[in-house]
């Protein structure tokens, strides 16, 4: 089994999240370790903790005296861990969920994405990857906030009639989301590439661009900013000719009415578009045209978009 390894921050006892100011054995031990310079040396100490991948013996990365200290305070540490109960350290990476037909789809920066059957339905499991370079308290808070924002955005989309996957289950302990798998769908990225490669009817791409513009206009009119608009975050349901689009991956989304935020959202898409798909300028133009026509608040947004374009890298700011 995997060992749960945890690098301890050199925080003061007051930073301990296990009760404000309570100098628990763990925190006192942390200060001692820091003082001993063991932390600076990057000593990693295995801790017997709750949850998956629970530890075995103390890690072999630790130096001699560190090991002795660790074992000596072992019972105290375990006790502290046990006290923390469910709100234990989020150090170990969550093992893949035991869903039937499980397969790893993507290993993103934020999460591992799996496909499988959940309660008898084709589902996607997004398991957040804990970032160990972050302070655990921050990591926990950030993870939880991102998960909540993603779920909130998905619900908001659906309530407004914007196609997005259905949420099946949210685990706030591991910050994992189980949602609907849009079966046999392809990303717009893959679709555009295949249409361009086969040298086929590229005018259909214009229609696709218009559909995308319309969808994004509706989303922005709900004051929902996607935050990570790329062609691989928009899916096409089968059959592809129907141009039935679904938005996914709302992990970086937020609510905002500011034209600035909407303009930046579009700018991100434009950059992703033009860098991934050559010769799609006309397609993106069609997208913007339909966006402007569909959205009730598009005027200021397009204006901001033009401003943001001038701001980007390698742009002259003179004048």
């Amino acid at each position, binding site marked *: 089994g995997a060992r749960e390894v945890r690098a301890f921050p050199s925080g003061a006892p007051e930073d301990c999240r296990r009760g404000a100011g309570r100098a628990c054995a763990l925190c006192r031990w942390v200060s001692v370790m820091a003082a001993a310079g063991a932390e600076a040396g990057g000593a990693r100490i295995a801790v017997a903790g709750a949850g998956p991948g629970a530890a075995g013996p103390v890690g072999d990365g630790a130096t001699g005296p560190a090991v002795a200290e660790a074992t000596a305070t072992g019972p105290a540490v375990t006790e502290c861990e046990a006290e923390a109960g*469910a709100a234990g350290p989020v150090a170990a990476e969550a093992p893949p969920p035991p869903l039937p037909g499980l397969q790893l789809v993507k290993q993103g920066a934020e999460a591992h994405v799996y496909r499988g059957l959940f309660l008898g339905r084709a589902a996607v499991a997004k398991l957040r990857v804990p970032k160990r370079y972050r302070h655990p308290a921050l990591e926990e808070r950030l993870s939880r906030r991102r998960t909540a924002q993603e*779920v909130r955005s998905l*619900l908001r989309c659906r309530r407004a009639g914007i196609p997005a996957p259905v*949420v099946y289950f*949210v685990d706030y302990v591991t910050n994992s989301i189980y949602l609907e798998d849009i079966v046999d769908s392809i990303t717009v990225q893959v679709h555009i590439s295949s249409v361009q490669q086969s040298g086929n009817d590229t005018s259909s791409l214009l229609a696709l661009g218009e559909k995308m513009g319309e969808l994004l206009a509706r989303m922005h009119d709900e004051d929902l900013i996607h935050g990570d608009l790329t062609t691989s975050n928009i899916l096409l349901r089968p059959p592809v000719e129907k141009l039935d689009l679904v938005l996914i991956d709302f992990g970086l989304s937020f609510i905002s009415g500011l034209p600035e935020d909407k303009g930046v959202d579009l700018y991100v898409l434009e950059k992703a578009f033009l860098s991934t798909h050559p010769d799609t300028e006309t397609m993106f133009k069609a997208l913007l045209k339909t966006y402007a026509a569909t959205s009730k608040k598009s005027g200021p947004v397009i204006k901001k978009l033009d401003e943001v374009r001038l701001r980007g890298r390698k742009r002259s700011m003179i004048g």
Partner: protein
Amino acid sequence: MELTHRLELFPECSVSLLLFNRLKNAAALRKKAMEGSIEGALINPAMIVDPFQVLVAANKAVHLHKIGKMKTRTLYAEIIFSLSPNNNISDAFKKFGISDSDTAVLIVLVVDGEKTVNLKDIASQVEGQQVSLDELPQLTDTAKVKKVFTPQEEKIGTLLDSVVCRMSAKDVL
């Protein structure tokens, strides 16, 4: 006849759904459920559009039970609460639990570990006819469900989709 599903995330737990029609002792059953003498959640089938809806609620309830973060006092109460789109417990019971005048009931059992499912024991307490879960759609009151869930997303999904999404996402609001 009944539907049993092993929860993927909690492999030791299996959920069983039993549907009864032509119910005569709804009042007595409700009383028993309130006392806690029935090992099961008694649900009003008119509010259920698909067994998946119940499985989602059961999965959430079992999860919260395992981490000790249930909002209600028992697992079975939590299942009923999880079916509701809002966080009002008594409202959930009123809408999704059975009432004295009901003529059908959907019973949910959760079996942990090696315990064998005692379906006969439950069935003997019900004065009604057990029917297959396939008959559930006939018992669904779609108008009532729509009134509670007010789905605006008719074109992007089924009623079940909007119901399940609301259920799963309610604690983020």
